[in-house]
């Protein structure tokens, strides 16, 4: 039996690299694990911001990164979700929180479907405190009242250069050993990595190697194949750019869909970050800039255009190399889930941190669980393209979810979901998929009781939202948002 890995070498760049390095060092440093990084040149430009998902808060807390300080030093902002504007149909809000609360102990959503059939006007998002707070320029934090109501989470928009730099200094404070290189050569013995050699440097050996180099996949690329997901995702080009900040900083992303392309706007305290996804066969890069300018209504600067090619690594952990981030799973840019992919990789590597160099059992489990997690993220994104008719292809697991939802208002429960049933339903319903039926048991609830439930929830949402601080004011209060 070989000993547990004592020395981890991470090759990569940007947040993928620094989040992994800090998390591993913070968790395993006390157990005597050394972390060495080999940093490759950054791919970040001033036009890149990360969107996060709510679980990042607990990872930050474990690392000792505090919210107010983080937002101050990155000029970041809060995000309560995404306002999605379909090319046909009404905008809808995809919230980091729940929609409605149980009525007579039964799930809320089917009641809403039933009431809509009987002429209810209220939108689904009207029943979500998180969505309504966002729409009213406010921010919403969980408290005792909201805990009994349901989930009210939040996330951030973080300008990427500043965020990566904070993580990097944190890594240094935690005792991560750092090296830099323009390129790297990989020495292999059998299937395993023996050492990585920075250009012009001496070989760096380790027990476990992590590839956090993004889509370049410098370590794992040559040995582990990828499975193409392009059939589900039409966009093959991505434009990133930056414009002026809005007068009031929206606590949400704005995602504007049009035929075969979309434009997303995310606000920080100092700028508005624009992402546009499109197909090379529809428009060249120049007209894409024009389109993004039109869609955002902003004068854009720092434009960067890159190809997009969604795919998953067949084995994210291959021999003694673990891919974390886009090197393991390159998602479509919709909803900007890349940092979440990094976090999922980190969390599961930590809970399966190998007890031996061979690590066969851990590797098999890591590959099983990350594949499942990434496929559920893929399904969520794929739903947007499939239900708007932009893509004719969808994964089987999504087709099943859509069919069950259409028939019965329920989300087929699956393991390893990032998004809650409420979020799936808000997405499906927002994109115009209104179920034909609902679980019959809700018919035992008298109509008057159902209406009373609606009134109670709407009343709660209204009062709660009015109680909440304005997003700009709150940023100012925590010492950020000086320009507000």
């Amino acid at each position, binding site marked *: 039996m070989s000993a547990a890995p004592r020395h981890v070498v991470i090759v990569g760049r940007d947040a993928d690299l620094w989040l992994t390095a800090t998390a591993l060092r913070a968790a395993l440093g006390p157990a005597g694990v050394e972390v060495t990084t080999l940093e490759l040149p950054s791919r970040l430009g001033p036009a890149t911001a990360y969107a996060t998902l709510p679980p990042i808060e607990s990872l930050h807390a474990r690392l000792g990164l505090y919210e107010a300080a983080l937002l101050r030093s990155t000029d970041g902002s809060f995000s309560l979700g995404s306002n999605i504007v379909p090319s046909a149909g009404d905008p809808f809000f995809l919230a980091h929180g729940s929609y409605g609360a149980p009525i007579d102990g039964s799930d809320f959503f089917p009641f809403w479907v039933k009431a809509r059939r009987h002429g209810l006007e209220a939108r689904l998002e009207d029943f979500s405190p998180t969505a309504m707070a966002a729409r009213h320029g406010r921010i919403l934090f969980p408290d005792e009242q909201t805990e009994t109501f349901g989930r009210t989470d939040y996330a951030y928009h973080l300008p990427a250069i500043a965020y990566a730099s904070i993580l990097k200094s944190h890594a240094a404070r935690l005792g991560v050993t750092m090296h830099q290189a323009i390129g790297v050569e990989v020495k292999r013995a059998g299937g395993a990595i023996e050492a990585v050699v920075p250009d012009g440097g001496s070989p760096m050996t380790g027990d476990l190697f992590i590839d956090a180099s993004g889509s370049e996949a410098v370590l794992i690329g040559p040995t582990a194949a990828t499975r193409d997901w392009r059939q589900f995702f039409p966009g093959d080009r991505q434009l990133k750019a930056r414009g002026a900040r809005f007068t009031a900083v929206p606590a949400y992303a704005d995602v504007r869909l049009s035929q075969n392309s979309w434009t997303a706007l995310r606000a920080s305290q100092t700028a508005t970050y624009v992402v546009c996804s499109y197909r090379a066969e529809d428009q060249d890069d120049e007209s894409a800039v024009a389109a993004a300018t039109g869609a955002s209504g902003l004068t854009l600067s720092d434009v960067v255009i890159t190809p997009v090619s969604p795919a998953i690594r067949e084995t994210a952990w291959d021999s003694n190399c673990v891919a974390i981030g886009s090197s393991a799973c390159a998602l479509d840019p919709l909803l900007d889930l890349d940092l979440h992919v990094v976090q999922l990789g980190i969390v599961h590597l930590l809970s*399966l941190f190998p007890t031996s160099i061979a690590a066969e059992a851990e590797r098999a*489990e890591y590959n099983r669980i990350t594949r499942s997690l990434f496929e559920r993220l893929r399904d969520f994104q794929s739903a947007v393209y499939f239900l708007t008719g932009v893509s004719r292809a969808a994964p089987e697991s999504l087709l099943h979810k859509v069919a069950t939802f259409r028939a019965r208002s329920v989300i087929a*429960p699956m393991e390893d979901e990032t998004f809650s049933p409420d979020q799936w339903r808000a997405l499906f319903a927002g994109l115009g998929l209104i179920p034909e039926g609902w*679980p*019959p048991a809700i*018919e035992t609830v008298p109509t008057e009781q159902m209406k009373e439930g609606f009134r109670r929830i709407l009343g709660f949402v209204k009062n709660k939202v009015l109680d909440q601080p304005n997003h700009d004011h709150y940023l100012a209060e925590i010492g950020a948002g000086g320009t507000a």
Partner: protein
Amino acid sequence: MASNGSDRQLRVVILGGGTAGWMTAAAMVRRLPGEFYSIILIESDEIGIVGVGEATLPHIKQFNDMLGLDEAEFMRATRATFKLGIEFRDWDLPGERYIHPFGAFGEPWGGVQFQHHWRRLREHGRGTAPFQAYSMAVAAARASKFALPDEDPKSIRSTYSYAYHFDSGLYAPFLRDWAMARGVSRVEGRMAAVERDSESGAILGLMMQSGDRIPGDFFIDCSGFRSLLLGGELGVAWEDWHHWLPCDRALAVPCDHGGDGLTPYTRSTARKAGWQWRIPLQHRIGNGYIFSSDLISEDEARETLLANLDGAPQSEPRLLRFTPGRRAVSWSRNCAAVGLASGFLEPLESTSIFLIQAAITDLINLMPSPGPERAVDPRLADEFNRLGNVQYERIRDFLILHYAANRRQGEPLWDYLRAMPLPDSLEHKMALFRARGTAPEYQFGLFSRDSWLSVLLGQGFSPQRYDPLADTFDLELVDTQLADFKSRIDAAVAAMPSQREFIDGYCAASESVAA
């Protein structure tokens, strides 16, 4: 359910009135709106019921609560006792025993599971108690004690739950009275033939031997092993799991109380050709020998069974034949099967009634909307079948684990079980536990991480290592916390009444004759 055509009903016909049939009927009349669903149950007094499972899992309490049953009344009516888990004797090696409890082992600290902290202390030569000692349910079971759990999550008495041992021959009639009082119609008689739609293949009605015709829109097959509608009429294929679970016979016999008395747990003792159960009810002890007919004769099984009873047998042992496995799907066209008609897994972990309950829960959520034209909806059937697969496969793997992880050398059955190829899903779980003590965990499907842990450790698995994150904690502190946790358990158990005392004060059946 859709709103238009509210004057129409869906006519639900349940075939078979055993535990599955009456649980289905009771749950449906309770949960489905009567104006849209009518429920008829067909049963024949001439057909005996198998009466699956005298031992249950904690989930049954939720079922009874959903119906609004009074626990004490239900326990009196079914001569029930409390169950905190299952004791496995001689499964790993003769002489070894462990309990699979309904409850947690220790508590996680700092995001690291308890078993890793425990294991680390052992490796550092600290004097920890055996793993089983850190379970409140195990400690109470060993002391033959019982009290209802505490809802306060800070209390040590919140770390367990409980199920029942009951007379399932009394449960079905209890539910029948309850369901019929609330509008379920019962038809007495035997089915002779099935009427199908020649185009769609859907079932239109059941022809009775009496000549009556029972029309329906949706049919629920609760006809037991015979699976008259799903297997017989609709021809859904049988998936055989005999190669993993070779036992195919059971001899069952009740006996008088005696021996260990009213233990708050089921006992399963490994035998040469299978295993023997012992289930204490208020008025008797249920016993049975589940065996492989390839290895021993019925006579030999009967002899073994009768030689290992607490008290005098109350009847001749009754023989049951079965094949482990399940139907390829449980819902086809306008017919869903619940209980033995959909599959059979031996009662090693008391899962039969749970499988009925899980199928009922899913079926109620997925029942077709009223209106005959909606009764066949493959989308609803697909989801029902997918959910059922998850349950069956996870339970299957858990059952196989008990058999595969044995060290009983030189007995043909046990030698075979140790060497047989396992499902990949189970092989993967065992490899991960062996390597690092990480037990399976999933959100959907039966058996928690603690359940897996109890069996993996109980059957002699010894992980090579523990989670490296455990090394980041202060050893002294962890040692103190473990000792403190155990002393809280011991103090709480000392203060509990015996199961006998508790039952006497709570739910004793009037004609209870137990010692």
